[in-house]
């Protein structure tokens, strides 16, 4: 394949907000594909990889992280303005991330416990996904995102087609991969039936239950799953905890962690 002229290649930027950098690292982790990628797109802004800053506008912006400060709420508007297409990468950017656990508590109280001088901390009450702040063209799920899916999304945007990123449950991938079902065969709690595919059913492949990194699947029945998880011995506080991780504020997981408080007989 020939390298396109720098001027004719679409220009890509990678932005970071409140996050751990893990999803950006997934891009760097595309070692084998990075050269072919660089031949097709000009990576104009990617501080994690290079301090060279190509000026905007950009054809494709990948955005990692959630919005947690007033400055970031401003900065994401700038990013949107200079980007033709904006794709969020990872649970923070797509759902608010683990830091959205503050949404269920009082962030000022957290700050006063953690910091010696909490008055220096300027932070918002809630950690919001990018889509709550500006329009988003595509949301790539995962904590962290899956490398294969990231390349698929970039490739799809280059070809102006819909990315092949199915929204069905992890169970589909689990069976395609030929894993044993840890929930049925080992009695291991697993969120796979309510979680969106994307990781390739990585955890069940290593005999662990799914942790829900990719957020809710397109159709979920957490009440039915919770009934099973209780049979496997999970307590109500444990049930709340399993849904309140990287995608805690996604509506279906929020309901899942709230709807099932209390034993069967008490509901009806």
């Amino acid at each position, binding site marked *: 394949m020939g390298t396109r002229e720098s001027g004719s290649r679409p220009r890509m930027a990678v932005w970071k907000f409140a996050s751990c950098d893990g999803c950006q690292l997934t891009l760097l982790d595309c070692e084998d594909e990075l050269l072919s990628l660089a031949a*097709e797109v000009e990576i104009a802004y990617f501080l994690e990889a290079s301090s060279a800053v190509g000026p905007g506008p950009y054809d494709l912006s990948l955005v990692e992280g959630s919005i947690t400060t007033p400055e970031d709420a401003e900065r994401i508007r700038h990013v949107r303005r200079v980007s033709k297409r904006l794709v969020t990468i990872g649970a923070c950017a797509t759902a608010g991330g683990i830091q959205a656990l503050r949404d269920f508590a009082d962030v000022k109280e957290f700050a006063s416990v953690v910091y010696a001088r909490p008055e220096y901390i300027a932070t918002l009450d809630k950690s919001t996904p990018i889509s709550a702040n500006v329009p988003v063209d595509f949301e790539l799920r995962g904590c962290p995102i899956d490398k294969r899916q990231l390349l698929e999304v970039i490739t799809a945007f280059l070809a102006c087609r819909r990315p092949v990123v*199915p929204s*069905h*449950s992890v169970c589909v991938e689990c069976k*395609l991969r030929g894993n044993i079902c840890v929930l049925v065969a080992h009695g291991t709690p*697993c969120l796979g*039936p309510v979680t969106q595919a994307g990781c390739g059913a990585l955890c069940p492949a290593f005999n662990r239950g799914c942790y829900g990194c990719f957020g809710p699947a397109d159709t979920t029945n957490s009440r039915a*799953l919770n009934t099973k998880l209780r049979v496997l011995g999970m307590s109500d506080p444990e049930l709340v905890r399993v849904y309140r991780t990287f995608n805690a504020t996604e509506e279906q997981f929020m309901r899942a962690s709230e709807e099932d408080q209390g034993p069967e007989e008490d509901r009806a």
Partner: protein
Amino acid sequence: MSVGGSVGGNALMDTVVIESLEPLIAALQSAGYAVVGPTVKDAAVRMAEISSVEDLPAGVGDVQRPGNYRLAERGDEMLFDFAASPDSAKRFTQPPRQRLFRMRGQTIEEVREKAPRVALLGVRACDLAAIAVQDRVFLGRHPDPTYRRRREALFLIAVNCAVPGGTCFCVSMGTGPKATTGFDLALTELASPHRFTVESGSERGAQIVAAIPHRPADQGDLTAAEEVSRIAATRMGRHVDTEGIQQWLPAAHDSPRWTDVASRCLSCTNCTMVCPTCFCSTVEDITDLTGEVTERSERWDSCFSLDFTELSGQPPVRSSALARYRQWLTHKFATWYDQFGTSGCVGCGRCITWCPTGIDVTEELSAIRDGTGETSCIR
């Protein structure tokens, strides 16, 4: 029962007895087959390539209940005293993913997917019936040449069930527990002394038997083997009353039971993925980074997936779990007859065992048939 396949049910030679499976495995290997049989992996019986008898699960049994599977150590010498493994032959006849074609620029390149020579050891009667069902689907009106190549590359060694599982109901579906047709070889495992009766069902099966040490079966062997299948038939974990099912099941379109089962169904697709006859797939088109190469592939899909009935720009046709479950059960047990002339279910029980919430098709059917919508569940 099988159409299009090269295998038939006529006993091509008299039943013989072999003392050990080792020569059989070796003969299959020298005939160029990878031998795939039951092994213990991740606390389950999985079908995987074996190199010798040592790899088979001696003394291992299974306990299968709705939504629950556990191994049980018996500690005896029996190698096949368990029921259906989570892996059916579908993985070999219709792999989870396969490439269909590739385009380089405007040129279409054919992708010839592999059809490995595999000898499946330990196939159950229900699995053979399921392969016959798939044959009708893939070799019927619109024959699929890739399926045919894969199917012909499969050498099927049935082992008659001695210990049906708690979710088995092949007797209700008329498919087991004894293999009567559709195999190359059919074995019955006998104890004290440990030995196998062997029946050939095809020319190539008979050739393999001729090449290994064997002796004619005597009356004692034959009676013992019959006894194994007779007792197994009395030990079905489940039962379905199929009489008139083609009428009463579609007619139960508005049964309250559908709402009830939908409240327990996760739409997770596990039942359809483990079902040996479920054949639905979707196609996915991908391009490479340069946009030069495009590839179309096929992968297992399920009527439980929301986007399975998505039409361009429209909401899915079956957007509720109720509609999806009703579609699955009604197709499998009733409208399959209209389409392919048989039931879509062979009674293997996999969908019951591997449903995370333990939804039991036999229980759903009897509740629907009784018209009670009653449930043993307390919700």
